[in-house]
């Protein structure tokens, strides 16, 4: 019983949790969402650019996309965040006078997720049947317009589940920016839990942080499953017999 009580005190100290939860709502949650959403948007733009470079007919563009993707996908996220945050932070400080590492955190998360999203887009675009490009070109569209109007939109639709998964990863990875030492008002869920745990010597704030993360990620995971299932099943089919076929036009009636 002692052990159980001890564990309960460590992880489920309601008082410690009660103290940290308002701060998580007021500061942690908005910051986590800002980091994840802004990096998600920038990462999507970078990813689209990388995907288009990756399928380009220009070998140099393909190589640049390949090298970028290999490097940023191959590094541990914590290393990328530290290198970009501490490496480029001083440069930005000199240029803008801003001492906040917040933009650097967003930049690091964006650059990383861009590499993953680029691969997601590329595989989606390349999975579109070749007949689509051929049919569009046969109508008289240029290669670029065909890709833009027909092929890329279909490729993106197909990878929506993978994109949401990437956004879930981004929510979790945003916790790593605590390494950069954010200002008190810039702290996200994890760091607020971490600070509170360090002050109180009790781990309950981590549990509170965990609940916040799960409240974000679990619904998203189920949302992914839902779109995935919907796309697999397709829209409800309503095929009709080709009854009109035989009576079309004069040739058939003659």
């Amino acid at each position: 019983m002692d052990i159980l009580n001890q564990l309960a005190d460590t992880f489920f100290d309601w008082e410690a949790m009660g103290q940290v939860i308002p701060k998580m709502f007021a500061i942690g949650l908005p910051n986590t969402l800002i980091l994840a959403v802004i990096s998600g948007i920038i990462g999507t733009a970078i990813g689209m650019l990388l995907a288009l470079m990756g399928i380009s007919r220009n070998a140099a563009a393909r190589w640049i996309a390949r090298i970028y993707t290999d490097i940023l996908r191959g590094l541990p996220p914590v290393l990328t965040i530290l290198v970009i945050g501490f490496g480029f932070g001083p440069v930005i400080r000199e240029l803008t006078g801003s001492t906040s590492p917040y933009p650097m955190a967003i930049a690091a998360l964006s650059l990383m997720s861009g590499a993953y999203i680029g691969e997601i887009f590329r595989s989606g675009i390349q999975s579109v049947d070749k007949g689509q490009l051929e049919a569009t070109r046969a109508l008289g569209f240029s290669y670029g317009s065909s890709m833009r109007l027909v092929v890329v939109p279909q490729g993106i639709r197909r990878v929506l589940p993978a994109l949401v998964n990437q956004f879930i990863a981004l929510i979790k990875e945003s916790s790593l920016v605590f390494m950069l030492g954010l200002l008190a008002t810039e702290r996200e869920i994890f760091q607020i839990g971490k600070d509170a745990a360090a002050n109180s010597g009790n781990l309950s704030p981590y549990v509170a942080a965990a609940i916040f993360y799960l409240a974000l990620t679990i619904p998203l995971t189920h949302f992914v499953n839902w779109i995935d299932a919907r796309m697999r099943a397709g829209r409800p089919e309503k095929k009709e017999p080709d009854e009109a076929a035989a009576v079309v036009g004069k040739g058939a009636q003659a």
Partner: protein
Amino acid sequence: MSEFASGTLSAKNIHLSFGSNHVLRGIDLHVEKGTTASVIGPSGSGKSTLLRVMNRLIEPDQGDILLDGRSVLKDNPDELRRRIGMVFQQFNLFPHKTVAENISLALRKLRGMSKDEARDEALAQLDLVGLKHKADARPANLSGGQQQRVAIARALAMKPEVMFFDEATSALDPELVKGVLALMTDLAQGGMTMVVVTHEMGFSRNVSDIVTFMDAGVVVESGPPEKLFTDPQTERLQGFLSDVL
């Protein structure tokens, strides 16, 4: 009297290789304005590739392509393809767009029509193939035969001077073939210039004005259908006809 602004299409001495694979070895094909040429032959003989060379989806290594007597190899290939409609074995409709949008896309973007104009024209074309009531359906909710008729309407909406059919009925269930062939027959009788790659010997024999038999990248025999089908001159055509008829 033709319902269409048809043109005369000629391919002269077309050569094409993919690496060491010499796919087309000096093909000549002449399709007089308002007539239908069918191209028959075993799989892999280069028939479909020939169509793609004639609308420059693939550039030939050698040879010339003439539309109304003028070489088109120096033209912008995108503009050439607006003058030649193409229908594919697998339909290749755009699955993320409605039936009407499949047709109006090129009208808006390439012909500069407004959204309303393009939709009206798309509905008019759909009416001609008996599918106006499907305008707002998605291609996936149509039968294969209906999809192929939409694909034909999509090509016709561009007011092409020539129509290519690449085994347009090969992917269809047998009971759906008839409707698509009837539509193709209408076009042929309406005076459209057509090049039809087909395994439908009945269509080739009854509708086309000239039949070309290809094998291994060359034209083996070419002539009016009654002659080719009743009195084949070469062993290869005799063998092919006894296999398929």
